[in-house]
């Protein structure tokens, strides 16, 4: 690291802060409204209190093509429980009232389109949210989101995949703010016993097109995997494992798992 860099984004700041005395950032995913809205807020707070640096809150959606069975089941339960889009802003606001960590929303694109991209951005700013992760919106299809995120200063996290060309990686890097979501492996979300070499290769390719913050997700579920990832990347993203812990053992269970995962960020 070469001294201070200019950082405007709250997510970038949180990731940069981990460079002081840890190997990198831990980013934790939970869906809004699972098992209830209140418990999802409590669980997100517990994540931060036990070592998560950046929160990724998932907006439940009827057709989640990037999600594996664990997250599908949880988001469907949230929808069955009456989740409404406005609950996402409520959750962000309540979490931000209790902890400082930046909160990104992870959302499929149609809910944002229906809410209105500009109105969605404004309401996210009002709630204290940091930005969006968009699993089915790529830079080349996202002109309206690029404009609205520039207008509001929100972070925008685009995905990079092992199959992306260098040209597309450059597009994701140049247009992401906060970090680039590095897809570790080809497939949907869900814990995997082993992460292949693809993630490290991909982070290397992202670096070569100028990426400063590359965080690796999909299939990450153990402190050992996190430690391995932070050997070459700036953050590790855990989703399904946390959702499963919340489903099986409640807020206390997800807090315990988070503390264990956070040990993987030690230098």
């Amino acid at each position: 690291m070469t001294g201070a860099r200019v950082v405007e984004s709250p997510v970038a700041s949180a990731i940069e802060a981990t460079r002081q005395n840890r190997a990198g950032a831990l980013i934790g995913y939970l869906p809004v409204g699972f098992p209830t809205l209140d418990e999802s807020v409590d669980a997100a707070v517990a994540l931060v209190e036990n070592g998560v640096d950046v929160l990724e809150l998932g907006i439940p959606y009827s057709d989640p093509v990037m999600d594996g069975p664990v997250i599908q089941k949880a988001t469907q339960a949230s929808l069955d429980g009456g989740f409404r889009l406005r609950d996402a802003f409520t959750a962000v606001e309540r979490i931000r009232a209790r902890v400082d960590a930046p909160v990104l929303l992870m959302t499929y694109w149609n809910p944002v389109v229906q809410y209105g991209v500009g109105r969605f951005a404004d309401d996210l700013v009002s709630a204290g949210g940091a930005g969006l992760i968009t699993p089915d919106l790529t830079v080349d299809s996202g002109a309206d989101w690029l404009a609205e995120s520039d207008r509001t200063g929100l972070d925008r996290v685009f995905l990079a995949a092992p199959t992306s060309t260098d040209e597309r990686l450059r597009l994701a890097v140049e247009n992401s703010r906060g970090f680039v979501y590095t897809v570790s492996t080809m497939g949907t979300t869900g814990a995997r016993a082993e992460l292949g070499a693809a993630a490290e290769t991909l982070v290397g390719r992202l670096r070569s097109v100028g990426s400063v913050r590359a965080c690796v997700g999909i299939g990450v579920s153990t402190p050992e995997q996190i430690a391995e990832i932070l050997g070459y990347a700036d953050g590790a993203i855990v989703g399904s494992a946390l959702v499963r812990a919340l489903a099986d053992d409640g807020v206390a269970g997800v807090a315990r798992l988070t503390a264990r995962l956070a040990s993987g960020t030690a230098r």
Partner: protein
Amino acid sequence: MTIEATPTHLRDEQGPFFGEFGGRFMPESLIAALDELSAAYDVAKADPEFHRELAELHRTYTGRPSIITEVPRFAEHAGGARILLKREDLNHTGSHKICNVLGQALIAKRIGKTRLIAETGAGQHGVATATAAALFGMECVVYMGEVDTERQALNVARMRLLGATVIPVTTGTRTLKDALNEAFRDWVANVENTHYLLGTVAGPHPFPVMVRDFVKVIGEEARQQVIDLTGALPDAVVACVGGGSNAIGIFHAFLDDPDVALHGFEAGGDGVDTLRHAASITMGRPGVLHGSRSIMLQDEDGQTVDSHSISAGLDYPGVGPEHAWLASIGRATYTPVTDAAAMQAFRLLCQTEGIIPAIESAHALAGAIELGRTLGEKATILVNLSGRGDKDVETAGAYFGVLDAGAGA
């Protein structure tokens, strides 16, 4: 004789967008595969050898050109209008789906894919894909909503007999839209050796354009056949619309014939005043689903709403982007037909003409009856009989109470 289309060029649309509809809203993981597919399709499209190979398959395997059949006894119930059926039901595998499937399977072979995956609703597209996989010696996995595997058990067995693996989808509403989701998930994980053989004119670019190009042979044949028979263009062309492949297939050749009315009939289920229907264009609004911007049934928050139809093949809450565009510019008209009206038309065709239609196609027949009564006896109406009803015998038998006790067990 031939009749030249007026050059208004609606037929020239090549995507990714049709007006404001279409595009590509997909996970980054799949973009490379979509680009590979687009490139391979563009090369194939310009290659006479590809067209020769596909045409030869259609001649010797599909049974093309399909015939048209005039149905005067049926037409007596449709205001005496002249009604002509384009007999896609006579194709190998029993529906128009084989046209798209053989085209895409040839493309898959060109790009070295050894595994075909598909979603299916009624099972017709799944059967066609399983057939192509057997023909080309490829592995085949078909995703089918659990609800649909129950109401189309015969087609499940057909796919398995053809060597395919059928995976019942138990997520979401357990119907066609969830089968698409599951097929996309499979593709994300297996894109290296797998081609997703999407079964309709929906999905991300290039699927809507590519699938349309493979099914437009239906209308190209029919347009000349009608002219040869009657000396003129038809007054109206009619098809059922779920995702919209058979409808775009028969519409496309007529897009630049402004005097030919194009009518798509959507699944009205229990009626569009109830929540149980699949009339996406009639009752939906613009949004993004399954990779493209189109029109779909959704709630205020953009969550896809469950659809319903007695016909599994039309039970889909979205529609292809080219149809959304044709509706928005007023070139085609889309109208709902209820389950009850479709079933009456189903029985009428059986008993007046000795043709058992697919329940999907019966929606087009019901629409043609109403249209004939409006247009009168001087009108000629071309109907796409997109599939045969063998797969629907159990559903129709139960609907009309003609199964002997124990016969269906």
